[in-house]
C-alpha cells in the first residue's frame, strides 16, 4: 500500500516536480525506489531520518 499511496501522489506531479516520501526500512524502502525507477521517475535523494525511517526524494523527469 505504500507504493499505491506514492503512486497516487506521483500522478499529480508536473515535469520537473519532486515528491518527498518517508519510508520505513525493509520492504517499503526496497520496493518504492525500485518501482518508481521502473516507471520512469528518478530517485534524486535517499537519506536516513531517524530509527527505521528514511526520506526518499523522487523527481518526475
Amino acid at each position: 500500500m505504500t507504493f499505491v499511496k506514492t503512486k497516487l501522489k506521483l500522478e499529480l506531479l508536473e515535469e520537473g516536480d519532486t515528491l518527498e516520501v518517508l519510508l520505513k526500512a525493509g520492504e517499503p524502502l526496497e520496493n518504492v525506489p525500485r518501482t518508481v525507477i521502473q516507471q520512469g521517475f528518478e530517485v534524486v535523494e535517499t537519506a536516513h531520518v531517524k530509527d527505521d525511517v528514511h526520506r526518499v526524494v523522487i523527481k518526475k523527469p
Partner: protein
Amino acid sequence: MSEKNKLSIICMSGDFDKAIAVFTLASGAAAVNYEVNLFFTFWGLDILKNERGRRFLGKGILARFFNFLLGGRNNLPLSRLNFGGLSPLLMTGLMKSRNVATLTELYDAAVALGVNFYVCEMAMHVLGLERNDFVPEVKDVLGVATFLELSKGGQTLFI
C-alpha cells in the same frame, strides 16, 4: 510494443477481509500499471451498492429481504470471528492505528488508479437489483462470456 500486464479478479465473497484482499491486490497491481478487472458476483455485489447501509433494495419481497440482510458495504462481516459485526469495526480501528489502508481507502485508491469494476448480470437479476443500484464507478454489467474475453491473456483470481 508489449501488451499491458493484466489481472482479473472474480469477487464472489461479501466478507470484509476478502474485500480487503481484493482491493489490496487490485490497487497494488494498478499502481504498477496493470490493467485490473474486478468482476463482482453474488455476495460480492454488496460491496458495490450505492446504499452502503442496510436497505430493502431490489424487486420482489425475497430479494428485498436478502439485500437488507446483506447489509451493504458498511456491514460486511469478517469471514471468521465476526462477533455479530463488531470485529470489522475493531479491525478498521486496528488498521488505522497501524497506518494500514482501510477498505474505504483501498476502494478509493482502486478508483483513482483506474481499476475496472464489472457487475455480474445473472447475480444482479437474482438479487433483484438494477444498474442504478450500484456505484457510478461500475463500468458495465457483464455475463461470463464477456468477462472471460476481458480477462484473456492475463492472470485471473477467484476470491
